[in-house]
């Protein structure tokens, strides 16, 4: 089944749409799917032109395609556990929060908290991701716990904060403090970043660009060779953060 949701023009286009209901499992039956526009509950058809093609008997046979002015639509794919969502343009905050399985493809940019506390599945963002990409919930000790999150462009600050398990791969640059409080999993940064991995207690962060303002509390631990994009890279290895328990690994490209 292919569900196409194309945004309608709205009187107040900057008010975000809260759309945690847009997940494959909700389109199996003729459900009354509703979303919030500010404090007003709306029927899905008030916000979108909806086209449904083909049948599906299980959520993994459902593909949702979002098009139009989708950059202010929040929480798409939250708690999704099967199926596929394709966003033709940009997507709003919290896309793929807590998702446990399935696939989200974003052709444009993603706003903050992409894949927050993700448990499994795949998110691929072809543009840039904003802040807290693959990060945790406020106050929660564990952030992303599984799955794969890939951003072909750049990501903002606090990328993969509290990363616990799973993989975050930013092909471009990250902002400030990527991998901060990281405790497991693998964070790969293709480009540059500042102050990586503050207070990390576990996991591995690989940086193939420059790591600016590198913190003084990481201990040099030899070199390692790593393969990236088909090339062998010589990496300076660090253990830290010794301000904390110092059990994490940061690899920064040397050559």
């Amino acid at each position, binding site marked *: 089944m292919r569900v196409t949701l194309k945004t309608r023009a709205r009187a107040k286009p900057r008010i975000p749409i809260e759309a945690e209901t847009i997940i494959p499992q909700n389109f199996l039956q003729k459900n009354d799917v509703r979303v919030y526009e500010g404090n007003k509950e709306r029927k899905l058809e008030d916000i979108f032109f909806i086209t449904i093609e083909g049948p599906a008997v299980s959520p993994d046979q459902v593909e949702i395609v979002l098009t139009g002015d989708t950059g202010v639509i929040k929480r798409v794919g939250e708690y999704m556990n099967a199926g596929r969502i394709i966003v033709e343009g940009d997507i709003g905050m919290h896309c793929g929060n807590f998702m446990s399985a399935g696939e989200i493809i974003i052709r444009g940019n993603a706003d*903050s908290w992409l894949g927050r506390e993700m448990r499994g599945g795949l998110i691929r963002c072809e543009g840039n991701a904003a*802040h807290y990409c693959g990060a945790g919930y406020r106050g929660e000790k564990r952030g992303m716990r599984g799955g794969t999150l890939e951003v072909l462009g750049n990501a903002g600050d606090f990328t993969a904060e509290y990363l616990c398990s799973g993989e975050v791969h930013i092909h471009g640059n990250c902002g400030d403090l990527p991998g901060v409080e990281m405790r497991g999993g693998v964070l790969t940064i293709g480009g540059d970043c500042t102050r990586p991995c503050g207070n990390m207690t576990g996991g591995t962060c690989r940086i193939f660009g420059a790591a600016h303002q590198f913190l003084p509390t990481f201990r040099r631990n030899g070199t390692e060779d790593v393969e990236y994009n088909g090339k062998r890279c010589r990496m300076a290895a660090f253990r830290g953060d010794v301000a904390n328990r110092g059990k994490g690994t940061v690899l920064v490209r040397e050559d």
Partner: protein
Amino acid sequence: MRVILNTGRTIRQGSYVERKTSADYMEEAASLNMNRMDMFELAVEDGNHIRVRSDHGEVVMKARAVEGLIRGQVFVCLGPYANHLVGPETHGTGMPDFKTTQVTLEPTTDPVPTIRELMERCGGVGYED
């Protein structure tokens, strides 16, 4: 000249904060506190006007020499003048970069706007007390 703008509380700003229409408040809020050497380089003296520009806006303020600031840093107390320059980006934390705005300084003879004028520039309608 490119410098970093820092903002914060001052006792004078606090004293007049509930009288924002007063000349006292304007005097304090529109003061650009600078290192003397930076002022020398810009060829300005205490009380001279300076156009301060950032990526987010521009505003004319009055130079004031102070001790305790290193070169390349200027300080303006919290208020509408400083905020004409500070960007709204919060890095997902709710808090803008009030302490670290890149600005450029350029001497000018243009007047320092009143707060009312600043707010009118933002689209407001001035109220005369």
